[in-house]
């Protein structure tokens, strides 16, 4: 099972959790498991067509999954996924 770090702006939609354990053999399956656990997150991560929104950045370790195999990137036990949010405060 991999862990996924929820960024602060999205925590209200994940019952305040900072890290969530997610099941799945790929990044895409893990994301589906995440939004099954916290349906309020769905519209923040996916557009109406069910694609990952372009401003949602997902990193596996320190690599952007776009530079791996995207949502098809395989996940191993204990992998750490991180959503990097778009924040604009200053």
């Amino acid at each position, binding site marked *: 099972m991999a862990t996924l770090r929820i*960024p602060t702006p999205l925590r209200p939609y994940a019952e305040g959790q900072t890290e969530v354990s997610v099941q799945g053999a790929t990044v895409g399956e893990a994301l589906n498991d995440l939004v099954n656990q916290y349906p309020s997150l769905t519209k923040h991560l996916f557009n109406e067509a069910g694609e990952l929104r372009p401003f949602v950045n997902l990193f596996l370790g*320190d*690599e*952007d999954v776009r530079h791996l195999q995207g949502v098809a990137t395989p996940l191993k036990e204990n992998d750490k996924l*991180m959503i990097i949010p778009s924040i604009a*405060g200053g």
Partner: protein
Amino acid sequence: MLPELSHSEIHRYSRHLLIPEVGLEGQKKLKAASVLVIGTGGLGSPVALYLAAAGIGRIGLVDFDVVDFSNLQRQVIHGQSGLGQLKVESAKARMLDINPDIQVDTYNEAFTSQNAFRIAEPYDLIIDGTDNFPTRYLTNDLAVLTGKPNVYGSIFRFDGQVSVFDAKEGPCYRCLFPEPPPPGLVPSCAEGGVLGILPGTIGTLQATEAIKLILGIGEPLIGKLLLYNALDMSFDFVKLRKNPNCKVCGDNPEITELIDYEEFCGMPMHDHDEGSAGAEWDITARELAERLAQGEDLKIIDVREPHELEISHLEGATLIPLGQLAARLSELNSADKIVLMCKAGTRSTRALEVLHSAGFRKMKNLKDGINAWAREIDPSMPIY
């Protein structure tokens, strides 16, 4: 030819001159450098203070705001005596008090596609200390189109991000975030709050990166994004790569001139509360007070967070935090007359959209939130 240092400057910068990586040559580079700081708020405050102290010869400040009481919790370049003054003038006075040997240029104007090239023209380096998405995209695109490095910093609550976007050598902001998020999906600091010291940490890191770039020393954060969390005291780094399809710095750029995003996506222009859902949906504090006094059966839904109730609350209101609203719609009846409220009307406007898309029609947004109630109806209530 680098400028000479006076005896007084040599004395002032003695602790720099002692470091071999800086030395006399480095201090002259700092004196010859010019830096544009966009925003003189939470991030811009420490950036401008430290760049002034470090002896950056020419510093430009862009901001069109005035110093507000609620700024002083984090915008440490401004003080109580500066309340109501232009931020750029308040900041300039403080910087010249620290270091009268530098030049501070002020631009008391909103940074837009119309003036960005003119304002940035004299500067070698840009520091993004803005508080909103439209200006961040504008700053990035400007940096790419003019070939100037952009030292980026951004904050929210306890989280900060820092990077150096230099499209000649690495990725730009758009390589990471190709488009701004739609309005409403990401809260601003005016809405979500920010730990006052957080911009101090992040702005100081931005100033550090700027000084390293000017001196040409160390490893700049090019191609790396620093993610800071104050609660965990964690510093994580992730790799950023140039996106060959990037719309502004990619192989076939589509963006060849500057864009003002707020014109077509309706995002708030800066970090202020936007308290109206439009005339059709708004109810003013006065009207709400009158209708409640007449005994009208209105269901008031407070969409703030539980900890905000201690500051102020309306009698009889039901708390459903915005983040839980979609999941708790079954607690509401679409036949009721519902009034949605929050601190200043921003979150309640979002809540109104949530209810609207669920088929509710009989609801109103308390315009400018409970703060308007405190101003107009109940002066015993604090404004926050």
